[in-house]
């Protein structure tokens, strides 16, 4: 059984159809890259998978481990192992990052019927993960993403991914706003999470990221559909030729 099956998905936002019948299958252990021009619907797809309100699914389905994802609340999806690293992570003033991380992790564990982490175990885990991602401890004392630079926000997303250990990681432009060193650190963080049980969907505009996180499949999205799929060579092709050839195809 596929980990994620998106079948002929049609999605509207405010009366306008954004996804026009999108199909995508992701199996355990695979890394998929999704590329495509601005406004082609990449973030929309990621939001619909994560359960963001405001999107109307008019047709098609999304199955996660064979279950109907669209029937679940966002928190249930998270507990089942869906994780979206946002293109634009929000700032939450007044909610300390550590409190947030612990509350979220324990909420997921509780939903799965697992025991909550004790404070020392939790702290040890956070310290381990943040060290690997080069995230200083004092950043974790601040409000969630408050005053974080663009790159720090992205690293904080990867930190959460490492902490929650989801089975499906969707990374929406994780590379935007990251300098070269930060990109390498974040990509190392992502690669460390690659496992035969876990799949990744990496949304990006740049082939460069795919040098670090090498995909098994590359999909081109245009105007709300997957218009071409291939292996990592496709990304190189796109780098050379751009998207114009697909605009017509869509």
């Amino acid at each position, binding site marked *: 059984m596929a980990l994620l099956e998106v079948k002929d998905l049609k999605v509207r936002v405010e009366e306008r159809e954004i996804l026009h019948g999108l199909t995508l299958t992701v199996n355990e252990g695979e890394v998929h890259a999704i590329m495509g021009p601005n406004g082609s619907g990449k973030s929309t797809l990621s939001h619909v998978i*994560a*359960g*963001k*309100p405001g999107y109307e699914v008019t047709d098609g389905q999304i199955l996660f481990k064979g279950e109907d994802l669209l029937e679940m*609340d*966002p*928190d249930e*999806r*998270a*507990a089942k192992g869906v994780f*979206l690293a*946002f293109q634009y*992570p*929000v700032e*939450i*003033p*007044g*909610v300390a990052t550590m*409190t*947030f991380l612990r*509350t*979220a*992790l324990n*909420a*997921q564990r509780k*939903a799965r019927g697992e025991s909550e982490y004790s404070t020392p175990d939790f702290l040890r885990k956070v310290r381990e993960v943040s060290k690997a991602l080069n995230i200083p401890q004092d950043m974790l004392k601040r*409000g969630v993403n408050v005053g974080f630079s663009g790159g720090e926000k992205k690293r904080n997303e990867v930190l*959460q991914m490492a902490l*929650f250990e989801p089975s499906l990681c969707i990374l929406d432009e994780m590379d935007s706003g990251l300098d070269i060193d930060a990109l390498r650190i974040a990509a190392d963080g992502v690669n460390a999470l690659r496992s035969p049980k876990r799949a990744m969907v990496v949304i990006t505009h740049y082939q460069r990221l795919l040098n670090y996180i090498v995909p098994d499949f590359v999909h081109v999205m245009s105007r709300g559909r997957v218009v071409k799929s291939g292996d990592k060579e496709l990304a190189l092709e796109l780098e050379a030729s751009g998207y114009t050839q697909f605009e017509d195809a869509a």
Partner: protein
Amino acid sequence: MNVAVAKTGKGRAVSDLFTSAEGRLPGSPAVIAARREAFETYERLGLPHRRIEEWKYTDLRALVGEVLPLAAAPDAAALASAADAVKAHAVAGARKLVLVDGVFAAGLSDVKALASEVGFKTLRETLEKDAGLLKTAAVDAVISLNAAMASDGVVLSIADGAQLSAPIQIIHVATTDSASAFTRSQVAIGKGARATIIESFVAGAKAYQVNDAVIVSIGDDADVAHIRLLDDAPDAVNITSQFVTVGANTKVNFFNMTSGAAVSRLQGFIMFAGEGSELSINGVNLLQKTEHGDTTLVVDHAVPNCVSREIFRAVVDDRAHSVFQGRIIVRPDAQKTDGKMMTRALLLSDEAEADNKPELEIFADDVSCGHGATAGALDDNLLFYLKARGLPEKQAQALLIQAFVGEAIEQIADDNLREHVIGIAERWLERRS
């Protein structure tokens, strides 16, 4: 015609209220005469209603209707049930003064420990000598009613230079259903003193009414934290009037949190009487169901060079109604006054309501005064982010609500006390349906 009939009807009920209580109210003959006079004032005015400007949003005739009879003095059973409530609400390390159904309960209080640092009497004792404590700077119907009916209270005097080693917690416990408690207290804080005063209103009964008055005078160079925590029963009524005078070069940190009572009003009359003082007033209203919570503050800059800062946060759920009225008066001489207030309301349901009425009355020209207000719902984007990380709706809301009120609660300097307040807010969150 209807109006006249209604008035007569209410007038008679109210008269019974006084005559049936008179024999039990403490005081010398002069005090009883002063009480009767105050009661007549109350009777003439009746309960405040919406056509009285200050009570526009809190119409007690509509919300409360009638004043319940004075509660009987607590018996052994009442004291025993009060003891449980006190245990549940005591701030660790604080010295307790407990008023049960409006009567001081020595057996539940830490009088001995307190007496080593603070002068202490009951209102009852004080009124045997004179009626001075029945007089206040501002008067309205509920204050007059309080003067007439006050059965007891605590009278504290903190000497010049005293540095209190522990906070004082005045705990009001109601143990009688459908009865009223009237209390009046005084806290006099000397020059250069340092003190933390906590007032807690807690429930051991149902559908009761509280009318409290507190007269606070703070000397020069003092440093005072004054925390008031209203955690009354969900069907109770609490009307409190506070009169505060602040000396020169003094720091006062006042905090109120309302997390209970069907109808509550805190009206504070605060006056700067000496230059160079700083007043920080922080308030949180946590309201649900059909609760009505009103905070009305008058900050009177009667002298130059003082700073007042008011931060007010209202969290309003279901069909509850929050009211904040903040008046800042700057007298003609009060140059260099710096007075600001900021109100934010978080509306958790479409039927929740928050009224905000700031008023600046400025008679000096070299001042910096202002106010700001916002009202809105929880941010959907923030909620979604939290839910996408696994937090169920209620828990995600709770985190954001705590963050919202956090800014006011953070102003409480004492860690232990702040944790106590956060605990009350958490229990309020758990009560949300």
